[in-house]
Each structure stands twice: as C-alpha cells, then as structure tokens.
C-alpha cells in the first residue's frame, strides 16, 4: 500500500508541529528530495524544453556578454591578460558569474513566485530556492561549451589545476544559494528587495574580476578598498576558476576575505530563512 502524503508521522512517534524545529531536518529534506528534483525539472522544462527561443536565448545571452566584455575590456581598455587571449580569460569569468547571477535572481524571487503552493500545502520551504541551483547548471554548461570552443580555437592549453575546478564550482553553488536564500526570505517581508536585485547583479558584473585580473583592484586601490573589493565572494571564486582552468596565478591572500564573507553570507542566509520559515504563508 502506498502510504503517501504530506508529512508522515509514525503512529507511536508523532510529528510535533513547530516545537524545537531545526532548519536542517535532514531526514525531512531527504524525504522531499523527489519534490526538489521535480521542481528543478519543471523549471528546466518551462525554460528550455518547450520553447525554441528558450534554448536560443540560453546561447545568445552568454555569447553577447562575452563579445561585449571583449570589445570593451579587451579592445578599448586593452586589459593585459598575459599569454592568455582576453576573450578566453573573460569567458571563464562569465562562466562563474552567469551561474551566480542566475541562481541569485531566480532563488531570490522563488518564494514569491511559489505563493500559491505555499498558501496551500506544507513542504520544507527551503526546497524552493534550493531547486533553482540545478537549472543554473544549464547556463553554466552552455558557457563551458563556448569556452571549450574558444580554448580550442586560440590553442590555450588546459591547466593541470583543472582537478580543483569542482571545488570552486561547489563553492560557487553554496555562495549563490546562500545569498539567494537570504534574498528570498527578505523579499517576503520587504517587497522592494526584488527591485534592488537586478540592479545589484548588473553592478556586480563590473566589481567582479570577470573581464580583468583581480590584481587591478590590489594595484589601483588603497588596501582598505581592496579588502572591500574582495568582500564580494565572487571575486575570490572567479580567480579560483581561472587558476583551475587556465593556470593563472593562485588567488592571493585577499581571497581569504572572499571565503570569510561567503561563509558569513551562507550562515546569515540560512539563519534568517529559518527565522521567518514558519510565517512565510502569513506574508505571501
């Protein structure tokens, strides 16, 4: 017999509603893993699988970004990227950055867009922003494919550091989710946050070393400002991607600032989400 639904307490061990609730009810999250995949699959279907323009858009966006970054930074500003052609250099940055931007904006809006579900049914709410991390990989895969083509064309060898790339990808996922979860929870109470996010993402592209080396920040800014610069966790992550893929110099000591700020963001995001968790349905 299929016992099914919603939340399953055992007969002798009841589900106690709202007492001693921890965020990481891992057993509960595991029980809902199918929902997690279904939500991710739904986003994928709706975004790519059913519209031709969806797939096309997924390719056009990174291509245009890469071209414009090349023209502005590579040609006009003549940014020096050493032996590596500028276009390859910045494409690695775009790969990390587009994932971050995608997850941030989609996870950020996710709770508001799922209002109808939230008002009617129980499931761990955090699954909604979490599921956005999966679809973001499609965009990342498209950008990586572009990168492979470019590296082939410009005969750029792959660094042996590539083994460490998964580490930076995981870090990238965690940071994007941490901030995305924080924003999704903030948006419930403060609706204007959703207008700030697109703007912040737009600015973020410039204050992240996507199309220029992070060294610029260190050489051109006073030291307090370069610490500030590296408080953007993506600064350290983008540098890490490039070290892993292209073998550029290891991220410097200041990259630790990025690590610390990433950890802080993740902890704050999760804590705040937990704080509002039980009342989400009252606000959406």
């Amino acid at each position, binding site marked *: 017999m299929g016992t099914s639904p919603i*939340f399953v307490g055992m007969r002798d061990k009841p589900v106690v509603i709202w007492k001693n609730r921890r965020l990481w009810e891992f057993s509960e999250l595991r029980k809902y893993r199918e929902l997690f995949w279904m939500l991710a699959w739904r986003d994928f279907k709706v975004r790519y699988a059913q519209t031709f323009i969806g797939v096309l858009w997924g390719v056009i966006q990174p291509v245009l970004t890469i071209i414009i970054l090349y023209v502005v930074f590579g040609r006009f500003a003549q940014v020096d990227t050493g032996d590596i052609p500028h276009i390859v250099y910045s494409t690695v940055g775009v790969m990390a950055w587009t994932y971050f931007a995608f997850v941030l904006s989609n996870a950020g809006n996710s709770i508001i867009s799922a209002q109808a579900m939230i008002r009617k049914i129980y499931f761990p709410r955090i699954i909604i922003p979490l599921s956005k991390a999966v679809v973001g990989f499609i965009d990342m895969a498209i950008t990586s494919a572009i990168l492979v083509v470019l590296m082939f064309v410009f005969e750029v060898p792959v660094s042996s550091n590539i083994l460490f790339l998964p580490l930076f990808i995981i870090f990238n996922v965690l940071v994007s989710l941490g901030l995305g979860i924080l924003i999704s929870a903030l948006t419930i109470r403060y609706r204007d946050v959703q207008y700030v996010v697109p703007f912040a993402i737009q600015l973020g592209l410039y204050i992240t070393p996507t199309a220029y080396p992070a060294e610029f920040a260190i050489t051109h800014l006073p030291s307090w400002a370069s610490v500030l610069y590296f408080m953007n966790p993506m600064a350290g992550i983008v540098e890490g991607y490039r070290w892993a893929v292209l073998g550029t110099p290891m991220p410097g000591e200041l990259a630790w600032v990025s690590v610390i700020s990433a950890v802080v963001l993740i902890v704050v995001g999760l804590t705040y989400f937990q704080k509002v968790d039980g009342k989400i349905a009252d606000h959406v």
Partner: protein
Amino acid sequence: MVKSQIMSDRSPAIEISGISKEYTLGRSTASLRESISSLFRKKEKVDSFLALNGIDFSVDRGERIGIIGKNGAGKSTLLKILSRITQPTEGEVKIYGSVASLLEVGTGFHPELTGRENIFLNGSILGMTRKEIQAKLDEIITFSGVEKFLDTPVKRYSSGMYARLAFSVAAHLEPEILIVDEVLSVGDAEFQRKCLGKMDSVAKAGRTVLFVSHNLDAVRKMCDRCVWLEAGKVRMDGSAEEVVNAYLSDIELRSEEVHPSERMDRNGTGDVRIHDVKISNPDSDLIESGRPFEVSVEYQSASADTFHCLAAVGVYKEDGTRIGTLSTRFKDELVELRNGSKLTFKVERLPLAPGKYYLNSFIGHRTEQEVLDFVERVRSFEVHASRFFSESDEIYYPYDTVYFDHKFSLE
C-alpha cells in the same frame, strides 16, 4: 462546554494543546525604508488580533470530526496550522500519521506542462514518490477522464478538465488523516460531491477525517463528533447532533440581521462588494410557494472600473442544506459589474415548500477561482404556504422542501 472523554483504549490521531494564532492587522509587508526608519523611532503599538485563542482538543484515530462556526471564527486558521502551512503563535500540535488535505487540489499545476507531467509534479508536491505515482498512474488517468489530452499542456484545458485532473491526483492519496475544507470550495457542487465521496471512503477505511463545512446537514450525517468554534475559542465540543442543534438555535436567536454592507465576515478581494440583497414577491408582501420570487443584489466598488463577473446566489435551507443556485453562469456569460450595479434574479414560480431559508451571495472575477466577494447568510427569509399545485386548493406537504411542477398519467 462539553468535552468529550478520551477513552484510554483509543489511540490519538491529533492532539491540540493551547493553540493560539495572532495576526498583525494591516499590511504584512513593508518597504525597506519604512523598516529602517522605524528602527529610530519609538516602537508603535501594532494592531493585532487573535484568530485562535487557546484551542485544546484531541481527535482519536478513526474519528470523523466536524468543525463548524461562522466565518472568522478561526476554522481556516486551525486547518492551516494542522496542515503545517502556518505556525501557531503559541501551543503545540501532535500529529500521529500521514496527513492530506483537500484544500490543495491542483497546487503547483503549471500551465505550460502537459497533463501527464502535471500529475507527476502535483503528486510529488502532495508528498507521493515517483514510484507511487507510477503505480497509480493508470487509475488516476482513468478517473480523471482526460486520457485524450494527457500530452496537451494544461493551459489548453477547459476549467472542468483542469479541475477533474487535479482532483483525481488528490483522490489517490491514502492518508491516515484527511482534512477537508468545504468552505473553500465555493460554488462548485461537483467538486463538493467528490470531496464528500472521498471523505466517506477514507472514513470507511477507519481513518481519521476532519471536516470543515457550513453544510450542517452534511456534518450531521458524516461526523460522529463536532467542534463549534467561536471567536477563536471552542464554544462547544460534543456529538455532531448535539452541537449542530445548539449552533442552529444560536443562529435563530441572533435573528436581527446585520446589513450586508456592514458584514465583516466575508471572503474575497473586495474589488467589488455586495452592498445589499433584497428579496421580494412583486405580487405580495409575503414570499409564497408558487408565486414570483425576486432577489436583487446591489454592488459597490471603490474603483471606477468595470469587472467581468460571475454572480451567484445560493439558496439554502435553514440547516445548511443547499437547495439550488441562481447564477449568471447558466447562460455561460459574464456580467459587467461596476459601482452601483443592481442585478435581479427572477423566479416565476417559487418551487420551495413553506419553511425557513437563507441566501449566500457570491461574485467571482471571470471564473469561480478568484473570489471578489462572498457573504454567507446574507439574507434569511420565510416561505409561506400558497397554492402551488392548483389554484383552487391549498395543498401543503409539511415535510417537503422542493415542490415539483409535475403531471401524472394513469394507464
């Protein structure tokens, strides 16, 4: 207050202890600027109200329990807490077993996805595993009757098909505790009938059912026990028969009616509101069987817009049994309502037997899904005996509710 005794040999399904829920009035969201500037000001006192105020009761396994009370008594809030949608401000609930509620029919359906895809999506939202859905897929599809359109995106479905598909997923859940909120399923008799059927089969399998309804007759028939909520508290808890009767006589005592425009216990967005409802018989001062019967509803709106609406008036017997509906829908067209509109429903020969009745009034925006305004027991009226069947004799069947206009033949 009558409290039912929990017998020691029965095991509990739900234990509710000291549940309160406080809502803040006014806007629940704020802008950043407001909250930042409020940091520097003295804390203003925020208006709040208690939707639930110290609820205690428990439900045994296999019990069928009805929850009744006026709109705003806290029924929906209680259900939301029991189904874990929102958290209580105080108190604790223990739930023994899996829970499903029929308030979530169609939740998470995505218009761009096909019927089949939506079955899987909706099923997993309802807590079923892929395997379980796969195992029941054929049954669900047959039950829904939309086989032919299974691979069509549901945005192309008619609202009827959509509802059938949604319901058939929910109907295949096998919870140990089923929660049914009939109050939310305004206006769709087919759906209500299905809900009741599902409830019956769940109850027959010895599982626990929690039934929230305004249909007191259904509560009496379906439930062994009933809890009456009033202003966030348990007013009475006892056998369904006992509680429903007490509730009915209480309604009668409060016979002086509040004007519809001043009623606070209403549902809907309020973009258009029911301002007044008048009942009349153009031929007489009394409402009589077999005579003309008119219901006119006046609307008001704060905006100057025109709203394309579905307007309906439900006719109920005093005990909550639904008799019929006067609706703009039977012509399948929307009426355009604006501030000051007055809509009149005319019945040539009122087919009701003498007795006490009341009306609910409903306006939906385009469909029944978006409720603009809904007021229950907006007007009560008494039907008086008259000559329904023949002009010469007055025939009066005291136990009837509806009079059929009929003939007979003998061979």
